[in-house]
């Protein structure tokens, strides 16, 4: 009876086992309703506790992300979400067919942009579906509210998936801890706050769902679960470009299983069904297109697919033959043939250019110095910089040292599922070290592995406590019990019970510090809308700067509707979404030469810039200047990037012209070219 009720959450004192219910003497039981009838069996109690905890975690994940809605208003944050909002608006107004075939002439003037074929529709379709469902139920919501609250809603759903994944990995206790940890982990909150209507909001849910369904398929060996994981993969592909992580991690996992000899028939069923169906489904997204058969980033999956066919075929032949000598001969022939064919195919494909090499975005993950030298646009984004230690501590807190502890536990009990989570954790931590933005991808793995550590530790500690509880008499004296009892005491460390209680209190304290830290981080660092700024006035009152939106609405109300606005690409999405005017370049940054033209215009002398702007039909120029309020991320600060990007394409712009003795100055003593350029 001792180990029956599992430890359910970190730090909670062990629940005492209760006897079965309702064996009450007849004389005590008056007619129908008595409190004794409410006494549940142990299993039902446990179920009630689990469901309650999951409900609380679900609500917690949602409300932890609502700080900015409470402080400012319900609006979309940052830059990219405005594009997503605009496309969702278009989808709900015009319908799916128009959306899927949309050619937008309001951005990238005069080139236009094929929006239908160059976006990941998952997020917009999800928000539109929620919107239509609510409308069908006669809730008159505005699409903007749905967009703002999509991310917290999916964060709550992610906690549920984390629970099931933890249950699959270890046991339901670990699942509950995982759900609680991921509900408030700052690494995830940073990109899924209310108002952050970006692809990652939905993509992390899809990522974890795909991984969970795949691990379940490998554990059960069932085609139905593999089909479900293919659908999960399809959802992930439709939502985010980071699906490349899945399509490389899963083949790597299969390869590791094959090499370590842990393969089984279930693995074959799961991987093949998921790969073929997943690949086909993924190719339905126009933006992805034929990349699954043509791009170098996806070739690992195909290689492992063919390897599996060869491997299992050899396994089958070996089983048929039952004779090792003959089989060796067969093995030699087949393996050499297969290797030769594979190498030739790969060589021909890569050399002829049919299989495209790794694109810059992903290549810079393997070689972090690549972007700085070759692609300045990728290098200039602040989210793509390598991660500092402080970011790790900030985003993970105690999970950072629970992660190695969890790895230890996973290695102690190696199953297919734990091998997977270890690989996911290690690869994602490597990538999180290369690029700050990818801490988000590492967060579910870190939470799950830490949950394993927490759950296993607390389970051991409470088992120690419970053994002592049963064996000790009515007194609660904690000194050596061995003298007085002959019950099941395995070892006789004198202060074991004390130690266990102390460690439990320590664990509880740590987890409560984690919760405090997460709440503080969310409130201070990750809840600012970036489009509305707040500061303290001279008298301590709060001053709100709404300059961005005021500027865009001025554009909307005071300029002719076919006016073209030139600005740096950061503001493109916001101008088209809120100002409703045509822009020259925006955040999609798909055409480097066009951006370089704008950069050149901003950094040339005014008469040269006028010529360039005439050729682009520009009517208005928008610049952001933060000198009056001390806002530090304005265009003057970004100016050197304009110079670098412009100079990358037009060598007439040289960066040293704008510097004085190698320093960047903007006051009277600045370089003459700097003083006289358009900016």
């Amino acid at each position, binding site marked *: 009876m001792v180990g029956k009720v599992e430890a359910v959450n970190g730090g909670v004192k062990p629940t005492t086992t209760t006897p079965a219910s309702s064996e009450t003497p007849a004389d005590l039981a008056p007619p129908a309703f008595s409190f004794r009838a409410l006494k549940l069996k142990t299993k039902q109690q446990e179920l009630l506790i689990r469901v309650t905890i999951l409900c609380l975690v679900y609500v917690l994940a949602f409300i932890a992300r609502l700080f900015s809605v409470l402080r400012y208003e319900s609006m979309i944050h940052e830059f990219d979400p405005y594009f997503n909002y605009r496309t969702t608006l278009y989808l709900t107004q015009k319908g799916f067919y128009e959306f899927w075939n949309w050619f937008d002439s309001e951005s990238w003037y005069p080139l236009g942009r094929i929006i239908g074929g160059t976006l990941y529709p998952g997020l917009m379709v999800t928000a539109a579906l929620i919107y239509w469902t609510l409308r069908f139920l006669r809730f008159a919501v505005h699409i903007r509210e749905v967009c703002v609250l999509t991310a917290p809603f999916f964060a709550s759903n992610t906690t549920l998936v984390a629970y099931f994944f933890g249950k699959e990995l270890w046991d339901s206790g670990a699942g509950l801890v995982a759900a609680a940890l991921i509900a408030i982990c700052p690494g995830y909150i940073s990109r899924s706050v209310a108002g952050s209507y970006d692809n990652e909001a939905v993509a992390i849910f899809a990522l974890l769902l795909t991984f969970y369904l795949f691990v379940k398929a490998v554990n059960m*060996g*069932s085609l139905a679960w593999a089909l479900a994981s293919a659908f999960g993969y399809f959802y992930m592909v439709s939502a985010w470009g980071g699906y490349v992580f899945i399509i490389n991690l899963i083949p790597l996992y299969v390869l590791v299983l094959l090499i370590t000899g842990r393969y089984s028939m279930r693995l*074959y069923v799961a991987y*093949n069904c998921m790969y073929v*169906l997943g690949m086909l489904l993924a190719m339905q997204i126009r933006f992805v297109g034929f990349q699954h058969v043509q791009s170098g980033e996806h070739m690992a999956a195909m290689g492992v697919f063919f390897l599996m066919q060869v491997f299992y075929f050899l396994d089958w032949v070996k089983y048929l*033959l039952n004779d090792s000598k003959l089989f060796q001969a067969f093995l030699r022939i087949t393996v050499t043939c297969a290797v030769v064919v594979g190498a030739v195919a790969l060589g021909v494909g890569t050399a002829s250019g049919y299989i495209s090499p790794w694109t810059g975005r992903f290549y810079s993950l393997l070689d972090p110095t690549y972007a700085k030298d070759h692609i300045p646009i990728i290098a200039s984004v602040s989210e793509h910089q390598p991660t500092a230690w402080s970011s790790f501590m900030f985003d993970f807190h105690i999970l950072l040292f629970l992660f190695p502890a969890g790895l230890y536990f996973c290695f102690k009990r190696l199953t297919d599922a734990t091998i997977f989570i270890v690989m996911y954790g290690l690869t994602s931590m490597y990538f999180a070290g290369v690029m700050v933005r990818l801490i988000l991808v590492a967060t579910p793995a870190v939470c799950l592995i830490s949950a394993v550590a927490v759950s296993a530790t607390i389970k051991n500690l409470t088992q120690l406590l419970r053994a002592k509880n049963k064996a000790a008499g009515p007194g609660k004296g904690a000194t050596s019990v061995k003298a007085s009892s002959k019950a099941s005491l395995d070892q006789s460390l004198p202060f074991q019970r004390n130690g266990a209680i102390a460690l439990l209190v320590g664990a509880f304290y740590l987890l409560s510090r984690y919760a405090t830290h997460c709440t503080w981080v969310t409130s201070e660092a990750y809840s600012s809308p970036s489009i509305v700024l707040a500061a303290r006035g001279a008298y301590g009152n709060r001053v709100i700067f709404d300059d961005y939106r005021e500027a865009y609405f001025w554009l909307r109300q005071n300029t002719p509707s076919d006016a073209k606005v030139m600005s740096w690409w950061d503001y493109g999405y916001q101008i088209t979404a809120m100002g409703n005017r045509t822009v020259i370049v925006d955040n999609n940054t798909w055409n480097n030469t066009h951006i370089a033209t704008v950069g050149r215009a901003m950094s040339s002398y005014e008469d040269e810039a006028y010529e360039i702007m005439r050729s682009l039909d520009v009517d208005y120029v928008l610049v952001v200047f933060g000198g009056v309020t001390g806002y530090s991320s304005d265009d003057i600060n970004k100016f050197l990037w304009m110079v670098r990007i412009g100079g990358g394409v037009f060598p007439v712009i040289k960066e040293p012209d704008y510097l004085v003795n190698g320093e960047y100055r903007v006051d009277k003593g600045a370089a003459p070219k700097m003083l006289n350029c358009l900016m």
Partner: protein
Amino acid sequence: MGKSSTAKDAQALFHSLRSAYAATPTTLKIIDLYVLYAVSTALIQVGYMAIVGSFPFNSFLSGVLSCAGTAVLAVCLRIQVNKENKEFKDLPPERAFADFVLCNLVLHLVIMNFLG
């Protein structure tokens, strides 16, 4: 000498394979025949593409992948139905077949969308 020994080896290999395969149940042999048919259809399509070029690439891909997909799914069915696989001994063959049909349904629906 080496040549005759490898030839003898190959013959012995071939014979033992044939005799071992003859012992498999008929249901599995039917599934194997189906797999063979699907793979040969895929090869024919690849040959055709080599002759006339791959212009509607999505059509070519959907044709080849539908053959490869049904072949793979049939192999999965064979694995699940084979009585000698200890891992699947408590999976009823009806459930395996139902899963097979469901996956094929999804596969062909996607193929029809992708065919263009």
